[in-house]
């Protein structure tokens, strides 16, 4: 992303660029460009390297071990990471539960969990969704029944991504039954090795193992693992609303990487003696994609400007999420198109070989389909914007 920076930010950029000039293996490149998550081992190592440099929690306040960076610095950091084909940090601890813990957690919870997130000692997963409660989270049914100093958890969670490698889960469960469906829900932290937890992998169409069902059968966790007040778990999610802007912003900045993936493929592929990149039709499609991406990045700059001024962005975070998923889908489709029919060669058999970006681009194209479903589907985002911004 093109940024106009002052001297101080330029110096910061040079520092970040220097950091990323080493330590980014070539083997990450195509997966990162295709928006695919690296393996947990790779991401853990990356997180540790950032933590060692003091950059483990770029979006957190300094008092909790964060960098305290300005929005511009964040933007520079992410842009440089993207430029180096480095990945986005795994977000479940850093963006989803960390901020709730430092906003609503007890001192003991802050002292214990926050450093472990930064140092990658814990890998967190999320237990919100349930089979009957997808977009309609308020209808969740998992129970946490009080029994002495414990909660006894029962129920089923789904779309519990990375539960198979996680050490901790944060989950919502009913601690009482109230008239309003959002009430009586509590937020509870639990180690994944809690007896009574059982996970079942969910195979997805991108042939990558991300996600699971989580069954909870009389699983006991201490009441001390509850974050904040009993029955108010629903409210704590609101702290994330504001932070969603940052997640959306980072996603968009990292999306810039895909252009290099597409361009490399289009330069390499020859059609009738001419590089596909020089075909006016393909060049126009790629230009259209970059126009839309530039526009989306300009929307992100507006979000960052709001943050700098402490201003509310209204529904513009939702708009960025919406457009990001559309462009991620369009970009991976264009990359697959650039690869040509050989992109159908998804997995080599009998020890055959494939170019590095072959499975990555197509796997990215398949994975991209879920981005307009998760985290509030595009349809739900439309509902939200209609209500909040337009009063319809």
């Amino acid at each position: 992303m093109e940024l106009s920076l002052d001297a101080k930010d330029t110096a910061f950029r040079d520092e970040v660029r220097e950091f990323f000039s080493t330590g980014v293996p070539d083997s990450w490149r195509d997966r990162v460009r295709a928006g695919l998550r690296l393996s947990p081992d790779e991401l853990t190592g990356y997180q540790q390297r950032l933590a060692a440099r003091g950059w483990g929690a770029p979006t957190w306040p300094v008092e909790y071990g964060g960098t305290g960076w300005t929005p511009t610095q964040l933007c520079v950091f992410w842009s440089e990471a993207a430029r180096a084909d480095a990945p986005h940090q795994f977000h479940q601890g850093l963006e989803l539960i960390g901020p709730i813990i430092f906003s609503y957690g007890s001192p003991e919870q802050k002292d214990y969990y926050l450093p472990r997130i930064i140092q990658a000692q814990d890998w967190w997963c999320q237990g919100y969704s349930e089979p009957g409660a997808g977009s309609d989270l308020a209808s969740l049914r998992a129970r946490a029944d009080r029994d002495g100093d414990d909660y006894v958890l029962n129920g089923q969670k789904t779309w519990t991504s990375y539960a198979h490698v996680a050490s901790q889960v944060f989950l919502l469960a009913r601690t009482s039954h109230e008239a309003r469906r959002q009430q009586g829900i509590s937020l509870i932290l639990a180690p994944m090795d809690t007896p009574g937890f059982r996970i079942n992998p969910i195979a997805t169409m991108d042939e990558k193992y991300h996600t699971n069902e989580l069954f909870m059968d009389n699983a006991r966790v201490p009441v001390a693992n509850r974050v904040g007040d009993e029955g108010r778990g629903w409210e704590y999610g609101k702290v994330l609303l504001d932070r969603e802007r940052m997640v959306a912003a980072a996603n968009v900045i990292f999306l810039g990487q895909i252009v290099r993936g597409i361009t490399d493929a289009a330069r390499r592929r020859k059609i009738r003696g001419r590089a596909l990149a020089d075909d006016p039709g393909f060049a126009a499609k790629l230009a259209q994609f970059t126009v839309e991406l530039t526009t989306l990045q300009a929307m992100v700059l507006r979000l960052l400007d709001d943050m700098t001024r402490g201003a509310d962005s209204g529904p513009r975070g939702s708009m960025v999420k919406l457009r990001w998923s559309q462009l991620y889908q369009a970009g991976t489709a264009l990359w697959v198109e650039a690869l040509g029919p050989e992109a159908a060669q998804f997995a080599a058999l009998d020890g055959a070989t494939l170019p590095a970006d072959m499975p990555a681009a197509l796997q990215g194209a398949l994975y991209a389909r879920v981005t307009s479903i998760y985290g509030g589907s595009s349809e739900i985002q439309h509902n939200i914007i209609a209500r909040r911004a337009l009063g319809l």
Partner: protein
Amino acid sequence: MELTFNSEQIMLADSVGRYGLDKWPAINRHKLLAGEQDGFRERWREMAELGWTLLPIAEDDGGLGGSAVDVMALAEGLGRHLIAVPYVTSCVLVPALIGGVPGGEDLLGALGEGKAFAAAGVLEAEGGGDPAWVTTRAEKVGGAWQLTGIKEHVEDGGCADAFVVSARVEGEAGDAEGIGLFLVDRAALGDGVARFRAVDGHLHARLTLQGTPALALGEPGQALPRIVAALDRAICAHLAEATGSMEAATAATVEYLKTREQFGQRIGSFQALQHRAVDMTVACEEARAITWHATLSLDAAPGSRQRAVSAGKVRVGQSGVYVAQQAVQLHGGVGFCEELIVSHHLRRQMMLDMAMGGQGHHLSRVAQLSV
């Protein structure tokens, strides 16, 4: 103008439907795909017993001489039930390439009996969909033909017992003249076959020919029109397959909208989702209509035929991928899973779209033929 199946075609379609439900049930799909790496030979024999492998082969070649519309009725069912056998390559493309040509009799016989799979290497990577772009060379050495070159992507080549390959006896890549068709046995290729699995369960291959012995099918040199026509015929079968798949994905989605509840109501009561389902339905109708048009044009003059087939390839590619994407989207998270059939439809649509020349190639063919 007849644009409906006759009673025999309806019976054929019904038969494929029953077979699909019986042998390719969505519920077992994951296991079915995971277990097979040889092209589902058991399923293939069953289909041969039903006479389907003989259907597209001309009567003169010992087949049933089914019409393009007969093939359409069958292929629609393949798509509807996502039957992942290499039917279109083995039973439509290859017979159209070699039917009636001396040298192909044995292979045709084996294909018709369901005893073999065959694939065609008639498109090269740099041709971008143009079958005239042949760089593979054929040389006569001591009275026998030898081929040298690379066929980067042979559709369904991963389970083929034999390959029909285009090679050049004279001229340069792009020339219409000087192209021949050759029969290459799997065994003759040795480790020149690299196999790949696609996301739709089909098995493809990259062929590396290095002086590989081959049998000329007819006198080499003038094979291009036959290749173009054979591809057009195979594309039409793919269009029908895509249409069947689109309709199945749409039907599954409408059904889901009628049953799934969120926010205390069936999600099919939300107007935005209703309208999306309508757009999917319109896309299905577009695919069905242009598939008929393309299929009925197969016996027309080459220009009309190519224009109609390419129009079909472009529009069905677009609408097929759109429909399957929306089917996944409207199913939400479960739509993204292996377990549900809709994601399999999406994967097949994506692969069909890129097979036998992508949209870019076919759009430019339309542009050239419209001038």
